[in-house]
């Protein structure tokens, strides 16, 4: 086996999924001081949207592409609902939001189980995603390429939104100085809600990518929420640039270590490395001092 190509490409694809799971977290964590443990369940919601879309439109052709906006909007709306009903009462109390959202996560898992059953439902990759590219001797599945393109597109759209739109400027203003933004007439409440919608929607997109890997099941999100938090913390809270680099590094490092050792050992080593990293550099790769989000 090629010693480098396989883990590199696989790890990049896994990093792309981590990125989609982490983008929403970094936005809400950085902007509102909210630790949203229910973000993993928005991945799960996205996966079920892929399943439902395929139930309606069939498994072939472009149904998986149509699932993307559906997953984005439904997961985003659920995120908005969470913000309005629970989160908004707990701003700037990170540990309280952590506990409350763990509870919400359990409720959402049980709801999914009651609606869809505990047995997972199949999501079928259309034939145009089933092929492989030969890259330096590794038969690279199209699905991994699709995941990377999807994450990069979402990232590009988010960066552009933050950089050029007035909504993006409002988000950045709120992150940098909430009171000052308010005195300038920014409705920080609306900004918070829209940020939550955006972040949850991005997780929904990640869910579609995950559904192509493992189908759906009610507890699908739990395997991703902790790595996603690692990515946020390592990258530096509220830092898109840091999140992207951290997601990629964690993804590739996990794939390399899995390849060299075993799945369980790789997890342990990654956690140990992250703890050491945070002891040395508790603020993450990039600090909030740069005051830039994009």
């Amino acid at each position, binding site marked *: 086996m090629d010693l480098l190509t396989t883990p590199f490409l696989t790890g990049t694809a896994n990093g792309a999924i981590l990125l989609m799971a982490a983008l929403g977290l970094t936005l809400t*964590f950085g902007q509102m*001081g909210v*630790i949203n443990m229910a973000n993993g369940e928005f991945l799960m919601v996205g996966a079920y949207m892929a399943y439902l879309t395929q139930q309606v439109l069939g498994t072939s052709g472009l149904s998986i592409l149509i699932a993307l906006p559906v997953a984005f909007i439904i997961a985003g709306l659920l995120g908005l609902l969470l913000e309005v009903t629970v989160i908004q009462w707990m701003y700037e109390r990170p540990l309280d939001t952590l506990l409350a959202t763990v509870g919400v996560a359990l409720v959402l898992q049980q709801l999914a189980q009651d609606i869809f059953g505990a047995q997972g439902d199949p999501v079928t990759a259309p034939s145009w995603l*089933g092929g492989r590219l030969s890259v330096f001797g590794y038969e690279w599945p199209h699905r991994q390429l699709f995941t990377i393109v999807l994450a990069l597109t979402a990232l590009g759209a988010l960066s552009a939104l933050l950089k050029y739109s007035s909504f993006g400027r409002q988000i950045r203003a709120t992150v940098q100085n909430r009171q000052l933004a308010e005195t300038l007439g920014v409705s920080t409440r609306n900004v918070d809600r829209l940020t939550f919608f955006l972040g949850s929607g991005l997780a929904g997109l990640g869910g579609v990518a995950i559904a192509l890997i*493992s*189908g759906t099941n009610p507890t699908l999100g739990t395997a991703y929420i902790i790595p996603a*938090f690692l990515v946020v913390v390592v990258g530096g809270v509220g830092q898109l640039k840091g999140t992207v680099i951290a997601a990629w590094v964690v993804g590739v490092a996990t794939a390399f270590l899995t390849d060299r050792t075993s799945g369980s050992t790789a997890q342990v080593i990654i956690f140990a490395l*992250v703890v050491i990293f945070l002891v040395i550099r508790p603020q993450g790769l990039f600090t909030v001092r740069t005051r830039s989000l994009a």
Partner: protein
Amino acid sequence: MRYRDPLRFAVPLVASFALVASACGSDGDSDSSASDSSTSDAPDSTEATDGTAASDGTEAASGDICVEGDNVQLGFLNSTSGVMAISEQTVRDSLMLAAAEINADGGIMGKQIEFIEEDGQSEPTIFAEKINKLLTDDNVAAVFGGWTSASRKAMLPVVEGANGLLFYPVQYEGLEASPNIYYTGATTNQQIIPAMDFLASEGVETLFLAGSDYVFPRTANKIIKQYAEELGIEIVGEEYVPLDSDDWTTQVAKIADAQPDFVFNTINGSSNVGFIKAYDEAGLGADNSPIISVSIAEEEAPSMGVDLTGQYASWNYFQSVESPENEAFIAAFQDEYGDRPTSDPMEAAYTSLYLYKNMVEKAESFCVDAVNAASDGVTFEAPEGLVTVDGENHHIAKTGLIGQINAENQFDIVWSSDAPIEPDPFLEGYSWWDSSEE
């Protein structure tokens, strides 16, 4: 700037995540999602009649059969909520079917079965709590249920302490024999070893092992490796993925690279979907690199999102077994519950209740010690074929079957052991087995 405060929590937060994650890796099947739904005292369970049954065999005087009145109370302890509910509910259904059939036929020693249902909630600690309640508060004569090894291990000290009876219906990793538990699913020499015999008969020379990272796959693979050496099969790789992880891409790349004749799959639960999808994605399939599985049955096969036709599984029962008993079982089951598939654990649970009936009637007593004394050699013409209880280790002799998945997601039986295989949970009869060797 209070909203930057979360940074202070970063290090302890990550450290505690690491602890949680490593703890999760070792606790068997119990995924974290079991939320509290209330225990279901199902509508058709009869009202509790405390004190009519006593399972305490030590008090049995001569002529005392430990159960008074016209009814005998039994406990059905399965998870009807949480991650294991989908599997364990099917066991509950077939237990209720067997109870209804036995009652219609006159009951056990003339006593009608009343069952008390409890929900294990997919949590081993709840299983321990509930079996304690069933045995000591409800005084049931026997309990039927459990699925994961973690749930069985949690119930074992309780059922031994109360000198009760538990019938456990799922294939497992062996290396256990409790005087208070009857194991009606396969132990390793009835599922793993037959699968290896089948592979040897197919002329397999290289084998790759893929499993979830917990006790069953680790134990099974230890046995497989030692037996493979005996059979001259080369193990060309061994990979595990944590139970809560669904991503098999890296490991499947290793399988594609190793090009084994066969893959032995001991993956459990939803991880199977990630494995099968990654396998398909890598261009592997039944035609170029077949898989033999020990946890994919009639119900799981359609939920993979990938066509499994041509792949293999090792069990002791398939819905496709041809016998009058199985025909009657399937007809009765589908009559009651609709057009659902029947599977190995369901059949083992159904069989367990009949075996209990036959043991009690042979002992002419419900007392635990009397039942144990009479259990050796008790038989039942089960849907899977004739099964016989081993009074020594409390397992049952079962026929090993290999099935190949067809286009209808049913199994065509392609191999079977010559006769029912005597249970040998500690593999004492296999000279190549060395439990101390790694």
